[in-house]
């Protein structure tokens, strides 16, 4: 069981210099992902979701120091270099970023962008790379693929460009796809299509997926498991359906309750206060300042992410609050 993990993040901490001083951005993040699993990472802006993804990709900003390990198929990702790092980046992981327009070189054609890695790293001929890419473009729902290959990024709409980036991520057939808020930069009508394509491709290819989003419902729709992050750490991790019905952490419950709804209420229930960056988190539980259930113990000691498998929560009062939170979510 232990050896089956495709990706294993073990007590990952990341420190970045902010205003010249080292500031913790992530603390004690632990996640594991088996082959073919889909895990959603949910949280507010600045909660550390993207930083976690960047740590997995080996794409941390300059000056970052890390503690803990990220293991991919048992290999410490931090020790990869040269060919093994390129191998990891092609066969290991594929990445779909948030803003396709910023993440695709504007002066090169779509064809160049899609086939580059296939011809240089996987040793395919230009012709077979083209064939594979044309096939992929059709699969992600891009018509006129042949013509698209000669076009430049500015000639494509955001939705199409995001599909192109998905195709590029899938092209080397990676084992893990990381999608970092892939639909945030798109308008609402194209969002659904792009998510559908992503989901379909992942299931067809039996790929593992890490889906980063701030949309709890989207997370549940795509991923079996959801991890909720707050102030640079994971506060809860559960099966997505369970998380929606029986949240274990007050923060998750509050997030669920603050979603806009179609019927009934016309006012939102916001979480009081402001989200904190990890370095401003107090001694105790990072959420204690905004939590309606916090007591003195919560403010004094930081809880670990504990619990039975797939029912992990970083809250000292999980057991006693369990029913209250379930009730709170079902009432709203």
């Amino acid at each position, binding site marked *: 069981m232990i050896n089956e993990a495709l990706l294993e993040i073990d007590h990952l901490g990341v420190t970045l210099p902010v205003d010249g001083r080292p500031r913790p951005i992530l603390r004690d993040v632990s996640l594991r992902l088996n082959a073919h699993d889909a895990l959603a990472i949910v949280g507010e802006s600045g909660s550390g979701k993207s930083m976690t993804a960047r740590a997995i990709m080996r794409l941390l900003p300059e000056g970052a120091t890390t503690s803990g390990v990220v293991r991919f198929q048992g290999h410490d990702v931090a020790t990869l270099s040269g060919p093994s790092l390129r191998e990891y980046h092609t066969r290991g992981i594929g990445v779909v970023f948030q*803003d396709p327009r910023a993440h695709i070189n*504007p002066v090169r054609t779509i064809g160049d962008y899609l086939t580059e890695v296939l011809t240089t790293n996987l040793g395919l001929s230009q012709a077979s790379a083209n064939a594979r890419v044309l096939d992929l473009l059709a699969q992600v729902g891009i018509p006129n693929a042949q013509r698209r290959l000669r076009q430049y990024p*500015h000639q494509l*709409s955001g939705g199409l460009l995001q599909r192109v980036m998905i195709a590029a991520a899938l092209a080397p057939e990676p084992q893990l796809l990381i999608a970092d808020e892939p639909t945030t930069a798109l308008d609402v009508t194209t969002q659904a299509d792009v998510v559908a394509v992503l989901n379909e491709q992942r299931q067809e290819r039996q790929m593992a997926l890490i889906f980063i989003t701030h949309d709890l419902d989207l997370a549940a729709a795509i991923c079996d498991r959801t991890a909720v992050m707050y102030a640079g750490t994971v506060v809860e991790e559960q099966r997505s359906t369970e998380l929606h019905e029986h949240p274990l952490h007050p923060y998750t419950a509050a997030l669920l309750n603050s979603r806009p709804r179609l019927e009934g209420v016309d006012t939102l229930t916001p979480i009081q206060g402001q989200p904190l960056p990890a370095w401003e988190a107090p001694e105790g539980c990072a959420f204690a300042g905004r939590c309606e259930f916090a007591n003195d113990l919560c403010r004094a000691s930081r809880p670990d992410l504990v619990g039975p498998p797939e029912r992990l929560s970083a809250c000292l009062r999980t057991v006693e609050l369990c029913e209250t939170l379930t009730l709170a979510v079902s009432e709203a």
Partner: protein
Amino acid sequence: MTSGLAQPNSVPVRAQGSRARRRALRPGWVETICLTVILGLVVVVVFGPLLAPYSPNAIDAFAISAPPSATHLLGTDDVGRDLLSRLIIGARPTLLGATLIIAMSATAGTILALIAAWFGGGVDWVVSRNLNLLFAFPGLLLAILATAVFGAGLTGPVIALSLAYTPYFGRVVRSAALRERRMAYVDAASVQGVSSTRIALRHILPNVGGLIVVQASVNFGYVVIDLAAVSFLGLGVQPPTADWGEMISEGQQAILSGTPYEVIWAGAAILITVLAVTVLGNRLASRWGYER
């Protein structure tokens, strides 16, 4: 470009923007003149011997220091050589030398800039300091020094000026490449598994290519002048080989005797060349959005 209207299956907006874009790409009259002059110069350099009415060194003993006439359209110099022929043939060392210098300094400067931008930190520091050091050294002095080593002729000045112009490319390209280096697409490419060298050459370089072209055309003017100055000092192309700078040098005594034609024609040729290339460079710079 908004994606608001774009359905996933729709053809992206193309037709609507294309007329405006074509109009923006059409050269204005200034660009047309500059391009015509440059094209003319290329023709002169390539087909020089066919265009020149006489051999550049042929002496017409009956027309010494002659003013422009039907037999010698631009007149002759103080030994009776046809000035038009010398001007046409003299374009070669001047313009080819300048082109060679620009090509070498652009290549060297760009390579250094990409290395500095890619590795950053200590490497960047060392490269930048060395470029500054070169900057502080006057190019002409370097060229004179080089002739001391290589002897008179084009070799010394070309090597020296290539070296002297390297920082002009290096500095500008480095700052542009540093900016590109931080772009999201560079991160995305490296996560795709594209190697560093490839990212530098195939991704960053094309994005700073326009800047290199602009920088090359602007510097070309200065190089032509510097080369002419070296020849004027008698350190570059040696008589009797025709060269614009050398023509100015040779023609200066003739000014006193009332026949300034050699200096005028050679000076005008340098002026027009430099003007055409520099103006075009500035136009390209503002058109491509590189404010200078």
